[in-house]
């Protein structure tokens, strides 16, 4: 990187020369010229009234990419492995069949761990880091365990699930490694020319998609939305386990006073075959209650778009979309949802999508298999009949 003076814009006012703390600017032919002593403090850029001093990217180089990829394997508090980890491994394998993929797994005790599931994850190697303090997830301890090994082995790519844990841990690790991190990606591809990972995510409230690269620093890091990549039926390949005992970890400084799982009157959205998604088009709270009753009567999950949560009509736990949950049920029925990208990224992997909306041009119809154009309110009497038949 360099600092340059655009001579045509410089009027020779010498303000930068006076303000430069290390006298690294000289006046030559009534124009400011930056000398080699420049330490890039940038004061001259800020103060130049002509905006004639700029940064230049000329000497940017691209760091080599390797076939070493890391994926964070997340264990949920219940002990299950989050399937996003496997989805990411499968996607990386698809992008580069000769990649060496390492699944990074933290646990409190590796001796009585059943590794069979991890061994068939599709990774080439599972790196097990264990320490008694890893019993409960803690961003500081996990970071302190992962960063030194990551620095030593410097994988080309390091992916995390965009779950609450991944979104907590990945930025802490990326900051320690001083590398880039792309949040909440929904698509990954490889640049055929330089092998860089192209990370695509919804941006600006999901009105647009943005493709992002990390050209110089390593690893190339991203968090990946759950359920955006298909889970292969059989990903298993030869896989080794490498156990590293971690001993430089201090004990957690926090004290858990109380802990209980969230009890909800709504069924767990991620486990439903059928989900009814409700949007602003539902109109009134009474209509909403009717549709919720209907969903319960047919044993379907209830989801919603953000405006209903913002209104306080439904809790955040049932919000589907970028700032809510990502789901992939067999059938998703969108009632009165216009289909902002912010919502679409949460449900577009559903197997079959039915949308009802009175606006023929609603974006949701471009993502649905069955588009029903008309007024939802006309359906409600029939919904009511059905509930009465079921319950009555």
């Amino acid at each position: 990187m360099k600092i340059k003076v655009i001579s045509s814009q410089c009027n020779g006012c010498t303000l930068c020369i006076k303000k430069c703390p290390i006298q690294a600017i000289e006046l030559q032919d009534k124009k400011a010229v930056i000398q080699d002593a420049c330490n890039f403090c940038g004061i001259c850029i800020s103060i130049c009234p002509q905006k004639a001093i700029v940064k230049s990217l000329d000497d940017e180089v691209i760091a080599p990419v390797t076939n070493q990829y890391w994926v964070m394997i997340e264990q949920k508090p219940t002990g299950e492995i989050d399937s996003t980890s496997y989805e990411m491994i499968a996607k990386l394998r698809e992008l580069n069949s000769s990649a060496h993929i390492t699944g990074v797994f933290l646990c409190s005790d590796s001796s009585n761990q059943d590794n069979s599931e991890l061994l068939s994850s599709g990774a080439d190697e599972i790196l097990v880091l264990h320490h008694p303090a890893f019993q409960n997830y803690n961003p500081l301890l996990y970071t302190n365990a992962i960063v030194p090994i990551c620095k030593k082995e410097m994988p080309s790519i390091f992916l995390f699930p965009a779950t609450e844990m991944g979104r907590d841990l990945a930025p802490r690790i990326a900051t320690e490694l001083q590398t880039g991190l792309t949040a909440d990606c929904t698509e990954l591809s490889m640049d055929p020319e330089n092998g860089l990972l192209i990370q695509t995510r919804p941006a600006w409230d999901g009105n647009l998609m943005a493709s992002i690269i990390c050209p110089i620093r390593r690893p190339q890091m991203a968090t990946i939305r759950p359920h955006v990549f298909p889970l292969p039926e059989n990903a298993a390949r030869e896989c080794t386990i490498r156990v590293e005992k971690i001993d430089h970890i201090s004990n957690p400084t926090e004290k858990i006073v109380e802990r209980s799982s969230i009890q909800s009157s709504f069924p767990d959205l991620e486990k439903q075959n059928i989900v009814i998604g409700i949007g602003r088009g539902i109109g009134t709270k009474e209509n909403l209650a009717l549709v919720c009753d209907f969903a319960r009567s047919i044993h379907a999950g209830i989801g919603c778009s953000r405006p209903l949560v913002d209104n306080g009509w439904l809790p955040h736990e049932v919000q589907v979309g970028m700032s809510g949950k990502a789901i992939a049920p067999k059938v998703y029925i969108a009632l009165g949802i216009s289909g902002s990208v912010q919502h679409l990224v949460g449900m577009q992997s559903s197997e079959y999508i039915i949308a009802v909306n009175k606006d023929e041009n609603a974006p949701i119809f471009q993502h649905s298999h069955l588009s029903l154009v008309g007024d939802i309110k006309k359906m409600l009497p029939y919904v009511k009949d059905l509930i009465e038949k079921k319950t009555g």
Partner: protein
Amino acid sequence: MKILVLVKQIPDLENKVKVSIDQKTFSMKRGGIPSIMNPADKNAVEAALQIKDKYPSTIVHAISMGPKQATEVLKEAFSMGVDEGTLLSDFLYAGSDTLATSLILTETIQKIGDFTLILCGKQALDGDTGQVGPGIASRLNIPQVLGATSVSIENQTTCLIHREFRNYIEKIEYPTPALIAFKAHCNIPRLPSLRGLYAKEKWEPSILQNTDLQISIQNLGIEGSPTRVVKTFQPILTKTTETIHFDEGDVPMNHIMKTIHEVQQ
């Protein structure tokens, strides 16, 4: 006791204004779009003011980074009851990704110094990364607590945090200082007081530029940002769809019920 609150000005996306993108820099053109304080950040301001309610000698200091117009969110925070405000505004900071942004904010926090807690929203609605908070906590080497719903100060060295995280409701004691990121909707932010609304007209936050912070520009803006946006585009639509127009509600219901029965069998 000093509580720092990080607030961000974002475009008011509920206003359904079409967002346009500068095709050269890939940054959003904000001109003409009304701006608001990021909702979760307002919850963080409320949480800070609740601490001040209990311990009136507390100084609540709001920090924002952005163009000069971001003064507005600091004025709003001030009208709610915040004591002090700092705006980081320098065009050297434009184009910073989350790594560079967390550096700029951390340098500012260290300049202000001597804080008990840093409060912020869990994520901003516009960028939606939620990465800057943990980045700051990492740089300061302090604990981070994401998904908080409330915080109270227990004594000089500990705070008690309620949070919802990974499907659990937790009540945890943390040593201070710590960075706490609040969930949107976790409390009801107070309205500005009349006195606050009147006083904010005359009040100005301190404005810091890079001449004050003196961060090497290699670490700022596009140079200081390891990530590059290479393309923005409207999502491409791939699904083939069958469309049915209806006037009577039984038509869509029959289709829906038929599909449901097929799945349930």
